[in-house]
């Protein structure tokens, strides 16, 4: 099986779907001839032709609106938004149109679109190339939100997202594009090569949306994470030696509530980890769900380790980023080892 980076795995998913289904097409800023600023669509225009993968005007709302119209017609467009920070001009299209079209038309029209966008920090991108906006999508009835953490998952989830009949926001943790970053900026990041989840099959396979992955089994506490934070969590758990169970949510809508509840009922303790700032973030929903469903199993407060409640600060990236040290502190607190 070939070893792929996350970029290659995403590219492979797109190529396989373009080959598989004439109704799949890709457009977005700089995705055509050039192949995207992160190279995720590299070579696709050359291989599949101008009309299958092309550049779009710098108009995020227009990109999503166009995709919705195409989706309603019967195509399966896969628009790219160059950075998740720039998805906001399209927020109305995603919420008022993509998410609501099926409902309001009672299924006459639907928007089977997959909006790919690199998100998250850790690349010294400053305020507007680093944000994690998943919470503003998770709240929207009618949208699905998927966040892979490995090349293998990225391909399988992207294929499932494209084949899904509802609109999917597909957030790609850009810090993981080239290697499994564990939140330690002072250390050399290994490439994906050699990582077990970088073994990515050629050809189509799917990972169903709404199924979490248990990355590490454990008894002492449950850590809920997604995207880059899965690797941060694993590294932290290994460092501190606490026997924590690590769950990679993979999609936050639909959410694998059963996996979460089963784990926390077993461990009695839970820490939630995300890059986005804490207040009003998706961690609040997770914390509430865990508390509602595992109240009588909980032996310590559910904790959240998140970005601070500030904008993403360029020079203070590593002060802001919820790295292994902060997770370890929280794990110690919830397990009473503090």
């Amino acid at each position, binding site marked *: 099986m070939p070893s792929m980076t996350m970029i290659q795995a995403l590219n492979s998913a797109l190529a396989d779907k373009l080959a598989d289904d004439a109704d799949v*097409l890709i457009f977005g800023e700089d995705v055509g001839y050039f192949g995207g600023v992160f190279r995720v669509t590299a070579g696709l225009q050359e291989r599949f032709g101008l*009309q299958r993968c092309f550049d*779009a*005007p710098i*108009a995020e*709302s*227009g990109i*999503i*609106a*166009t*995709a*919705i*119209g*195409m*989706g*309603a*017609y*019967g*195509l399966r*467009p896969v628009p790219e938004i160059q950075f998740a920070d720039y998805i906001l*001009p399209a927020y*109305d*299209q995603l919420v*008022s*149109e993509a998410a*609501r*079209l*099926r*409902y*309001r*038309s*009672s*299924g*006459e*029209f*639907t928007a089977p679109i997959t909006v790919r966008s690199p998100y998250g920090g850790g690349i010294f991108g400053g305020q507007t190339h680093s944000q994690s906006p998943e919470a503003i999508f998770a709240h929207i*009835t*009618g949208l*699905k939100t998927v966040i892979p953490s490995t090349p293998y998952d990225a391909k399988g989830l992207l294929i499932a997202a494209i084949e899904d*009949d*509802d609109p999917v926001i597909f957030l790609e943790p850009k810090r993981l594009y080239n290697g499994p970053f564990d939140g330690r900026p002072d250390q050399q990041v290994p490439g994906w090569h050699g990582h077990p989840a970088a073994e990515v099959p050629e050809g189509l396979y799917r990972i169903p949306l*709404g199924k979490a992955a248990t990355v590490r089994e454990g008894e002492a506490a449950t850590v809920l994470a997604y995207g880059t934070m899965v690797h941060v969590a694993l590294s932290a758990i290994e460092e501190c030696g606490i026997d924590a169970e690590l769950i990679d949510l993979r999609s936050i*809508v*639909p*959410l694998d*509530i*059963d996996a979460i509840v089963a784990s926390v009922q077993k461990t009695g303790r839970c820490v939630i980890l995300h890059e986005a700032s804490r207040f009003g973030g998706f961690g609040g929903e997770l914390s509430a769900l865990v508390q509602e469903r595992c109240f009588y199993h909980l032996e310590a407060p559910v904790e959240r380790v998140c970005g601070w409640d500030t904008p993403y600060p360029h020079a203070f990236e590593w002060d802001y980023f919820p790295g292994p040290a902060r997770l370890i502190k929280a794990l110690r607190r919830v397990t009473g080892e503090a």
Partner: protein
Amino acid sequence: MRSRYKYAVSNAPVLRPNRLPLRLHIPEPVARPGEAAHFGNLALAEAGAVARPDIDTVEADVRHLPYTLIRVLDDDGHAVGPWAPGLDAEQLIAGLAAMLRTRIFDDRLFRAHRQGKTSFYMKCTGEEAIAVAQSMALGRNDMCFPTYRMLGWLMARDYPLDALVNQIFSNAADPLAGRQLPILYSARDYGFYSLSGNLGSRFGHAVGWAMASAYRGDEGIALGMVGDGTTAEGDFHEALTFAAVYRAPVILCVTNNQWAISSFTGIAGAETATFAAKALAYGIPGLRVDGNDFLAVWAATQWAAERARANLGSTLIEFVTYRVAGHSTSDDPTQYRPKDEADHWPLGDPVDRLKAHLIAIGVWDEERHAALTKQLDDEVKAAVKAAEAVGTLGASKPPVGEMFECVFKDADWRIDEQRTELGL
């Protein structure tokens, strides 16, 4: 609070010190309640006066069109000039009937709101020619991305009246199962895209739809519509940009009915440009058309459709008309415009004008008109009655379980649990 770090202040040259104080211009309409209404600012043109360019004329040669007014029906009810579409009597009478049906339906359902049978209603009185002519001029494979003032599209295609009323009453037979506000219809089989309360956000869907048709090598084109006020939305611009860039087979239209709720067109920029002139920004043809002239609407739509079908790209059309009624059942226009403003409207009434034309060409008379009116009135009455038999707002509604359907194709645990929580 300023930056903590201060540097010497600039020594940039200060050229031409200002003498006049600046002042902020706030546009105002010609007349407010109690003042004398007129439409003297509106640029008009004689019927038949505007040449009809070939559909493949280069854009540089049609840049005058946004500043004139394409009209076919003259004051005597004759169809004149190169834009006259040459329709036969049957088509014209069908158009008249659809316009009349629209108007009668509007009147009756507006009253139904007053009687508490529905939560909301919006009329299109005076604007019927636009949706009706477009519905008839376009084909079965074409898709309209309508505004809430395009009931005429459905009327021209014989959408069942009782289904409309059921939707308006949100009753158990509502085709949208109670999920959507009255009149925000969806009728895919009739080429009528799902409406929503949000203004302008489907203009780009029309472009995407048209691009999809072109992508597949199909035949169908798309028609997008917004109101004059809605042209200010960013989505208007982005849709036009995409349409021009990819030469999408789409007709993008503006119904300029002079008002956006209480705001006159000057608030959308009409003091300085016509809405048709916005086409120039994208290098596509822009037509400015008498929207109360059934034949002119038909001809302009057909011209744009031919261009789209010939892979010549999109066209922007402004239809000049007047919103005779209030904005909606929530509105009282006498609060912000002269009570008699409609009487001064220079382009007449679309139903009257088409009727006069039919009489002028000798295929119609007052008797037939009265009979048609009566017949349509009966049809509408019957439809309302049938819907009332199902139930009006509150008295009947679709099964509550419908609330949980169609959020996604397949419900997830949240919906399942909540359905249970509600006792379903």
